[in-house]
């Protein structure tokens, strides 16, 4: 017993002498990300002998619950990974502390403009390692078989290809031209891409006012719902194929001509698809028309638990996580696009067949300012579903969606 105690004291003394500090990093459980961070921690600890990083992960659907219950108990992470869309909610509930002022300058000058969404009320609450955007994935084999040599550039081309690729047997679909997924990425497509392409704006600059309840907004919305009602692109992904992320699974199964998905889907599709596939920038209204895209990111923030010497150590680790070196490694290991401007400009990336369209899209991508990510997603998904599943009038459905979302925003900012 005495020996154990003595040893413990000796270790404690040694730790004190070295200024040994342990900080905790949390993220959700996604294999390639977990492996990457484990490697990164080894590198970081080797370079910073005084700091130990504990890495903990949780299943995605339990992640926010864990954070919500642990931090008030003083048990949670010092550095935490979160989706940018959760940020305002987390800040309001007190789960994040602002970054020291000098980081704002770094973010403003060196990071993709998307990363501005890491600020709430002018204060910076974290930084991303990687960013993502949307693009059109297409099944080259199916397109070629139908006589198309290149992916669509305009929505007209997109619709005629989709119609031709849709195959029905009796009253069942056996192949879709496009797998619609309102609760997948299509709600972003309507909100951030189509509305802007048709000359509108989804929100005011401060993100507090819904601006899509007008002619441009309605045109964008009706255009999207007409894909199913008028243009015969097929049906909803989840009516066609079973499971979660049905649209993507159906595409991987080789039964769908085109889907719109994020760069985060590259790995899954690359591993699963047993055919020739390609990626193209999102179609536009007509040649020379405005290009728009939806960008998003996961960021690293500091919780209120990082105080005193732990704060300095946590900042050091966060800096390391968003460093150029890490971002390069992240692209190779996880396949997500770097958040730093300097790396995005790298021609090796912009000319890449798969990454290229996503990287180019980043330069004109915008991120939705969510205050209640699930709630706002539901508003858009429901607006679409009311028309597609219940045959409601698009104008009426769109108007009530705008009112509902405005209520969510008002409720948050009141």
């Amino acid at each position: 017993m005495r020996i154990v105690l003595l040893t413990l004291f000796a270790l404690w003394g040694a730790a004190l002498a070295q200024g040994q500090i342990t900080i905790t990093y949390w993220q959700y459980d996604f294999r390639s990300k977990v492996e990457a961070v484990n490697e990164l921690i080894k590198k970081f600890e080797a370079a910073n002998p005084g700091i130990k990083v504990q890495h903990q992960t949780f299943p995605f659907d339990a992640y926010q619950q864990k954070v919500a219950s642990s931090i008030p108990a003083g048990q949670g992470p010092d550095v935490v990974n979160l989706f940018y869309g959760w940020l305002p909610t987390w800040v309001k509930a007190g789960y994040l502390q602002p970054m020291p002022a000098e980081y704002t300058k770094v973010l403003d000058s060196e990071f993709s403009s998307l990363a501005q969404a890491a600020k709430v009320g002018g204060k910076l609450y974290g930084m991303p390692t990687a960013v993502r955007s949307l693009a059109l994935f297409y099944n080259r084999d199916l397109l070629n078989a139908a006589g198309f040599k290149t992916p669509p550039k305009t929505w007209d081309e997109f619709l005629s290809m989709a119609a031709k690729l849709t195959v029905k047997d009796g009253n069942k679909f056996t192949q879709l031209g496009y797998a619609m997924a309102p609760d997948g990425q299509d709600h972003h497509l309507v909100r951030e891409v189509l509305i802007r392409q048709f000359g509108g704006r989804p929100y005011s600059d401060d993100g507090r006012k819904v601006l899509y309840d007008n002619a441009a907004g309605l045109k964008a919305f009706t255009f999207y719902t007409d894909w199913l009602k008028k243009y015969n692109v097929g049906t909803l992904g989840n009516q066609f194929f079973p499971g979660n992320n049905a649209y993507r699974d159906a595409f991987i199964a080789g039964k769908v001509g085109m889907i719109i998905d994020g760069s985060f889907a590259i790995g899954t599709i690359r591993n699963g698809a047993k055919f020739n596939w390609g990626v193209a920038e999102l179609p536009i209204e007509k040649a020379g028309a405005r290009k728009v895209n939806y960008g998003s990111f996961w960021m690293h923030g500091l919780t209120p638990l990082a105080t005193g010497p732990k704060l300095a150590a946590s900042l050091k680790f966060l800096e390391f996580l968003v460093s150029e070196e890490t971002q390069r490694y992240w692209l190779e290991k996880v396949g997500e696009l770097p958040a730093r401007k300097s790396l995005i400009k790298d021609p090796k990336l912009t000319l890449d067949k798969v990454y290229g369209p996503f990287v180019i899209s980043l330069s004109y991508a915008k991120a939705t300012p969510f205050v209640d990510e699930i709630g706002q997603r539901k508003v858009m998904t429901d607006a679409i579903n009311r028309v597609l599943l219940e045959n409601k009038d698009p104008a009426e459905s769109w108007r009530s969606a705008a009112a509902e979302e405005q209520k969510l925003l008002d409720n948050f900012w009141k």
Partner: protein
Amino acid sequence: MRPPEPAQRRVSLATREALWAFAFLAIPLAFFLFIRIWPAFQALWLSLFDWHADPSKRPFVGLEHYEQMLSDRLLLKALQNTLAYTLLGVPLQLLLGLGIALLLNAVTRFRDVFRAIYFAPYVTPAAAIAWVFSWMLSPNFGIVNEILSVFGIPPQPFLTKPSQALATVTLIVVWQNLGFQVVLFLAGLQNIPRDYYEAARIDGASNWQLFRHITFPLLNPVMVFSAVIGTIGFLQLFTQVVNLNFTDQGGPLGSTLTLALYIYQVAFARFELGYAAAITVLLFVIILSITLVQLRLLSRRVEY
């Protein structure tokens, strides 16, 4: 020389046994009080505050969250759905459970095999069941629609159409719970003494009369237990709903949203833990009152 130990000697064996029993009972009691009852009161307390991670920054808002409920459209939807799940699911579950138990009770061969088959879904993880059902119910590639098409019925969207989704989820849950119901009723049936039936048969009673006057009344305790447990289960429905439509939980168009799922979303997606606690209190009151009413109505002493 050791001093005498008078105090211990005088305690009788019976008292000592009782003391030991109390000592052991105290452990589960403490567990129950601190793990179950105490958090319930904390939820009540929490529902009077706006949430913040730092306890010193939680403003007292009184009954504001309860007022907020009155104009919460989604909460109303969740309440309606939860009620519909319960009203559809519980009677169906009882009827099917009783029916299958009666059939199983009538056979003497392979009874255990059947019972095992019916019980298997009950011990299968809900997420796995959700996955399998979403395949079987798929409009284009599902076996269920394949079978329907034999009878000339067009493919049904089941889980993806608001008008069908709630009923479909209810059926899946009932199917999953059925084994448990069957086992309960089977145990109840086997507790009824054979002589009652023999005596009634000698008096010339028909099968229906046997069921109506012997089986049914004597199954009453099982019935009450099943109904109460079933109701609580449906009122707290969560896992199946979450997994059957993972990307639009409670959808499409809120048609499968339950109170428990809504509480989860308010608490852990909106981080409004105060409001979530208030809805928890509401759910608690609903479950308590329905259970009390059920116990009164169903467990009336039956004359026979």
